């Protein structure tokens, strides 16, 4: 077989790393998408996102082990449950911060994250709980250049669909248009007879639900651990900033792109693979101050 060496590495390895990067990118995309929705429409920097992602995974675990509800229903039930939790947070706390500086929202959600993670840690310890891959998605395919677990393939496809649906909902539907209008000028939108506070609450619920959905998706891959989101949140923040704060498409594209770049770094300079995102962030912000696709603020 004739192979062209690319970048000095065998193509099998290259394809493998690219594909794995894409899979990780799927998680970044979904998490940063939720963050971007919340920031873009509510102006809240949601530091609790990682904790809510973790709650999604735990939710799936409980559904399975306590109620006997499997993976497929959990994909819908867990995000709704966590979404409701998020809406309660919004109604009881975040609501009071509207009109204040971003910093307060960030600090409040950071506090919430600490509480949620602390409580889970007290009850479930630090090393976490196992969650099995659903039977339908077990096993793997030999792609020639690598062994691809079917579940990972499913993650990429599914999250891509979810991302595009969310983008469509916000940028291309009437509901989304109302939502965007409400953030620009709430008084005017209220004059049209739209319940703005309820809409904002629902939007926060949507963003949180996306985080929880990512949590359910990752449960079979990663251990269900109280601190699983804490490790991830800073990277996801960087993705949102690189993509342009609040930009939906920017987050999706950056999420996937970062996954790929990280994947390549893992091969060429593995030590730096957790840091490469910050190098990118500095570079992007220097060249393009409001992120890749950000609107000028």
């Amino acid at each position, binding site marked *: 077989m004739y192979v062209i060496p690319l970048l000095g590495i065998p193509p099998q390895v290259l394809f493998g790393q690219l594909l794995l990067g894409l899979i990780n990118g799927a998680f970044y995309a979904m998490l940063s998408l939720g963050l971007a929705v919340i920031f873009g429409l509510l102006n809240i*920097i949601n530091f609790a996102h990682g904790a809510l992602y973790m709650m999604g995974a735990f939710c799936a675990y409980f559904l399975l082990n306590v109620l006997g509800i499997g993976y497929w229903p959990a994909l819908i039930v867990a995000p709704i449950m966590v979404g409701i939790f998020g809406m309660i947070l919004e109604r009881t*706390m975040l609501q*009071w*911060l509207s*009109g*204040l*500086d*971003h*910093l*307060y929202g960030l*600090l*409040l959600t*950071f*506090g*919430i*994250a*600490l*509480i*949620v*993670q*602390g*409580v889970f*840690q*007290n009850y479930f310890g630090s090393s976490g709980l196992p969650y099995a891959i659903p039977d339908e998605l077990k096993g793997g395919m030999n792609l020639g250049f690598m062994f691809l677990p079917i579940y990972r393939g499913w993650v990429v496809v599914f999250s891509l669909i979810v991302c595009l649906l969310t983008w469509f909902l916000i940028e291309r539907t009437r509901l989304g248009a109302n939502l965007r209008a409400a953030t620009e000028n709430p008084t005017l939108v209220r004059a049209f007879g739209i319940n703005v506070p309820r809409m904002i609450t629902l939007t926060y619920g949507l963003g949180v639900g996306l985080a929880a959905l990512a949590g359910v998706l990752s449960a079979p891959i990663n251990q269900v651990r109280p601190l699983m989101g804490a490790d991830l949140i*800073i990277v996801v*923040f*960087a993705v949102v*900033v690189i993509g342009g*704060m609040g930009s939906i498409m920017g987050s999706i594209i950056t999420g996937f792109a970062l996954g790929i770049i990280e994947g390549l770094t893992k091969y060429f300079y593995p*030590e*730096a693979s*957790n*840091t490469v995102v*910050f*190098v990118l*962030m*500095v570079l992007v*912000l*220097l060249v393009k*101050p*409001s992120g890749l696709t950000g609107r000028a*603020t």
Partner: protein
Amino acid sequence: MTVLTDDILPTSGRAVRDEMIAFAVMAGLLLIVPLTGVYPFFVMQALCFALLACAFNLLIGYGGLLSFGHAMFLGTAGYVTAHALKVWGVSPELGILLGTAGAAALGVITGLVAIRRQGIYFAMITLALSQLLYFIYLQTPFTHGEDGIQGIPQGYLFGIFNLARPTTLYYVILAGFLFGFLLIYRTINSPFGEVLKAIRENEPRAISLGYKTDQYKLLAYILSATLAGFAGSLKVFVAQNASLTDVHWSMSGEIVLMTLVGGLGTIFGPVVGAFVIIAMQQYLAGFGQWVTVIQGVIFVTCVLTFRRGVIGEIAHYFRRSL
């Protein structure tokens, strides 16, 4: 950024008098600490963090710039001082000087990059830069990775003062803190400080008045970095170790927390905030696994109920500037 800080009353005679009284009370209380039986190491640690928070507050409270990477100055100065004392065997004053200079140099380099952006982007770029630095410190051999540098000799300051004696060390740290604090106080009330406040309130207008705002912001940033580094160097003598926790982003978050709890943009707020947070870390350590939950609850309460911080609320209640 205006909502961050309560209105700063114009510097009137009364305000200056209030501040002088508050300063005298603070300095007086701190001076007698070793006589009271309060554990001096706790106060020393808190003083280092208080200075750090004050340096941070200079940037956010008066310059309107939220840095989310201030731990990098604390950690850099700490590593440089620790290395100089332990490996090169330099005297304490030279160690502090080297550490502070290291932080200042880092302030110049990162400042040139970060100062070009504002608001949330400024916060994020400082975060990114500090993460890069974290990576560098993890990789370079002289920091000994996650083990850190321990058992740092304290030595004799100026060849006379034995820093291994807790009382001597306490007064040296206190002197360092008061020096830094007064420097910041002086800066805030200087013409330079007034320009900074003008930039915070309305940058375009400051520009149109002919101020080179970037230069002012850069200078404030470097000053803040240097003082944060000074705090980091002092901390080495107290903790006798330098580790990666001091460069980690969660440390930067803690600095923000201290300043917020005490009161953003107030002169004494960061000091109170630092004491509260360090006391929490120290005394909550016994609560074991509930530490993070308690911290979270305090965060939430603070943001929801007294947003101006402890000092800010008091000042607001008495309509004074503190």
